[in-house]
C-alpha cells in the first residue's frame, strides 16, 4: 500500500516548477524588459500533459496520499487544457490592463498545481491543503486589478466566504478523523463499510460539514451567494479560469470523497444532493434569465452547469460517473472560450460586458461573433456541439438510474437556458447599435488561436465524442 514513488506527483511538479520559474523571471527582469513568461507556463503545462499520458493506466501512488489513477489523470488533463487556453487568452488582457505579468502567471500556475493535487488527492488533509493552495491563488487573481474597486470587492467577498466554508470543511474532516481514526480515503471507506455506523449521529454531522464545504466550492444553491459577485468583479479571463478550473478540481475531489470513502452512506447523502442539484439547476437558470450583464449571466449559467454535474453524481452509475468527467471537459472548454471572448473585447477603462455592448458585434468583429455563437450554443446544449453530448449522457445516466424527476428538471432548465443564450446571439446578429461604438482594443492573434482551438474542440467532441468518452469510461473503471 505505502509506496514512496514520486511518479504520481510529476504533473503537479512540472506546473509548480514553471510557477517558480515565472516568479524568478519576474524578480530578475529589468524594468522595461519584455519576457515571454506565459511561454514558461505553457512549457510546464505541456510537461504535465506528457506526464499524464505516460502515467495513464499505471495507477501509481505517491506516499499513499496522491494517487495518479485514470480518474485523477483525466481531470488533470482537463486542467492542463484549461491552463494552456487561459494563458493564451491572458496575453492580450495583461497588455490592455497593464497587469503585473510575473505575479499573474505565477499565481495562475500555483493555482493549477493546487487543482491537480486536489484532483488526485487520496487523503482528506491533502484535499484541504490543495483546496487552500488553489483558493489563495484564485483570491489574489480575482483582486489583481487593485485600482478597480469592484475587483477588490469581489476578491474580498470570495475570500470571506471561501475561508468560512473551508473552516466548515475542516471541521468535517476533524469529525471524520475522530470517528474513523484516519484521514486516508481508502481507510475511511474500508472502516465505514466494515462497521455499521449508521446509528452514530456524529458521522452524519461529519458528512454534512464536508458536503457544505464542497457545495460552497462548486457553488451549489444555497451556497452560491459569492459566485455572481466574484465572477462579475474579477477580470473576465480570471472568471473563465475559476469557473472551469476550480469547479473541475472541486468536483473531482467531491466525487472521489463521496463515491469512494462515503459510498456506504449513499442512502443518506443521495437525497440531499438530489435536492441541491434540483435547486441549483432551477435557480441558476431562472435568475440567469433576468441578468443584463453578460458576465453575471454567465456566472448564473455556470451555477446551473454545476447542477447538471450534480445530477451525474446523484445517478452515479457507470454512465453517470463517465458523464461527469466528459461534462467537466465539455463545460471547461466551452465556458473558458466564452469568457475568453468577453476578455478580448474588454478595454482598459470600459469592460464592455453589458448585454447591449454586444449589439451589432457581427458587423465589427464577425469572427469573434461567430465563435461566441458556437460557445453559447454549446453551453445551451444544442447539437452538434459538445454541450449536447455532455448533457445527453448526464440525463441518460439519470434516467437509467431511475431519477426521472431530475432528468425532467434538467431538460426543462436546459430549454429555458437556451433562451438567454440565444438572446445574446440575437443581439450580436440582428440588432443595430444605437449610439457610438464602444471602444474596443485590437484583438491579439494569440487569443484568436486559442479561440479557434476551442471551437475546433467543441465541434470535434460534439461530432466524434466516442474516443474521449472511452477514455472517461476507462478512467472510472479503475476506482469506485
Amino acid at each position: 500500500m505505502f509506496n514512496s514513488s514520486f511518479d504520481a506527483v510529476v504533473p503537479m511538479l512540472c506546473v509548480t516548477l514553471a510557477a517558480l520559474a515565472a516568479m524568478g523571471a519576474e524578480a530578475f527582469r529589468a524594468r522595461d524588459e519584455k519576457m515571454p513568461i506565459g511561454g514558461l507556463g505553457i512549457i510546464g503545462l505541456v510537461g504535465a500533459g506528457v506526464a499524464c499520458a505516460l502515467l495513464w493506466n499505471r495507477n501509481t501512488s505517491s506516499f499513499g496520499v496522491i494517487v495518479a489513477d485514470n480518474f485523477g489523470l483525466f481531470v488533470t488533463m482537463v486542467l492542463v487544457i484549461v491552463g494552456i487556453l487561459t494563458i493564451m487568452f491572458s496575453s492580450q488582457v495583461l497588455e490592455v490592463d497593464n497587469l503585473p505579468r510575473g505575479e499573474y502567471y505565477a499565481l495562475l500556475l500555483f493555482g493549477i498545481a493546487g487543482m491537480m493535487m486536489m484532483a488526485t488527492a487520496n487523503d482528506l488533509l491533502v484535499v484541504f491543503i490543495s483546496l487552500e493552495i488553489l483558493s489563495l491563488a484564485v483570491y489574489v487573481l480575482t483582486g489583481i486589478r487593485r485600482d478597480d474597486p469592484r475587483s477588490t470587492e469581489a476578491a474580498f467577498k470570495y475570500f470571506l466566504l471561501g475561508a468560512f466554508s473551508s473552516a466548515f470543511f475542516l471541521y468535517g474532516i476533524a469529525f471524520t478523523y475522530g470517528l474513523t481514526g484516519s484521514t486516508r480515503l481508502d481507510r475511511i471507506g474500508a472502516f465505514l463499510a466494515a462497521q455499521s455506523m449508521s446509528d452514530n449521529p456524529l458521522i452524519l454531522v461529519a458528512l454534512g460539514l464536508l458536503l457544505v464545504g464542497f457545495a460552497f466550492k462548486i457553488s451549489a444553491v444555497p451556497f452560491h451567494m459569492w459566485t455572481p459577485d466574484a465572477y462579475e468583479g474579477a477580470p473576465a479571463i480570471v472568471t473563465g479560469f475559476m469557473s472551469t478550473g476550480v469547479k473541475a478540481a472541486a468536483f473531482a475531489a467531491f466525487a472521489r470523497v463521496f463515491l469512494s470513502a462515503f459510498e456506504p452512506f449513499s442512502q443518506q447523502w443521495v437525497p440531499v444532493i438530489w435536492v441541491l442539484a434540483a435547486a441549483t439547476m432551477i435557480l441558476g437558470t431562472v435568475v440567469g434569465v433576468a441578468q443584463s450583464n453578460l458576465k453575471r449571466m454567465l456566472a448564473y449559467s455556470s451555477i446551473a452547469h454545476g447542477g447538471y454535474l450534480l445530477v451525474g453524481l446523484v445517478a452515479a452509475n457507470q454512465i453517470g460517473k463517465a458523464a461527469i468527467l466528459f461534462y467537466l471537459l465539455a463545460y471547461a472548454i466551452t465556458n473558458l472560450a466564452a469568457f475568453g471572448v468577453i476578455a478580448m473585447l474588454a478595454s482598459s477603462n470600459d469592460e464592455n460586458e453589458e448585454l447591449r455592448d454586444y449589439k451589432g458585434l457581427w458587423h465589427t468583429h464577425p469572427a469573434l461573433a461567430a465563435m461566441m455563437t458556437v460557445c453559447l450554443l454549446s453551453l445551451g446544449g444544442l447539437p452538434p456541439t459538445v454541450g449536447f453530448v455532455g448533457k445527453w449522457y448526464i440525463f441518460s445516466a439519470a434516467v437509467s438510474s431511475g431519477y426521472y424527476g431530475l432528468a425532467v428538471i434538467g431538460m426543462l432548465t436546459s430549454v429555458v437556458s437556451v433562451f438567454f443564450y440565444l438572446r445574446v446571439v440575437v443581439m450580436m446578429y440582428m440588432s443595430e447599435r444605437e449610439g457610438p461604438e464602444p471602444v474596443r482594443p485590437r484583438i491579439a492573434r494569440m487569443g484568436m488561436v486559442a479561440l479557434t482551438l476551442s471551437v475546433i474542440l467543441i465541434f470535434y467532441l460534439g461530432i466524434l465524442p466516442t474516443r474521449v468518452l472511452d477514455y472517461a469510461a476507462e478512467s472510472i473503471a479503475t476506482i469506485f
Partner: protein
Amino acid sequence: MIPLDHYLIVSAILFAIGTAGVFLRKNLITILLSIEIMLNAVNLTFVAFGRSLGTVDGQIITFFVMTVAAAEAAVGLAIIIALYRHRESLNPDTFSSLKW
C-alpha cells in the same frame, strides 16, 4: 483525565462563536479573527480526537492547519488593505458596488 466529550463541546462552542462573529460583526478585521477562531476550534477537535485515539496524527494535522491559517490571514489582510484604500471604511455594509 478530562473525557473527550468535554473537549468536543468546548470546541463546538468556539466554532459557534466564530460562526456567529462572521455574521454579526461589522468590522472586516473582526470577521477575519472570527474565521481564525473557527479554525482554532477545529484544531482543538483534532488534538482531542488524536489524544483519544492514541495517535499523533491529530497533532500533526494541527500544524498543517496553522500554516494554512497563517497564509490565509496574510492574503485576507492584503485584500482588506486594498479594499480600505478604495473605501476608507472597514464596514462590510458599505461594500455594495456588486449587488449581493
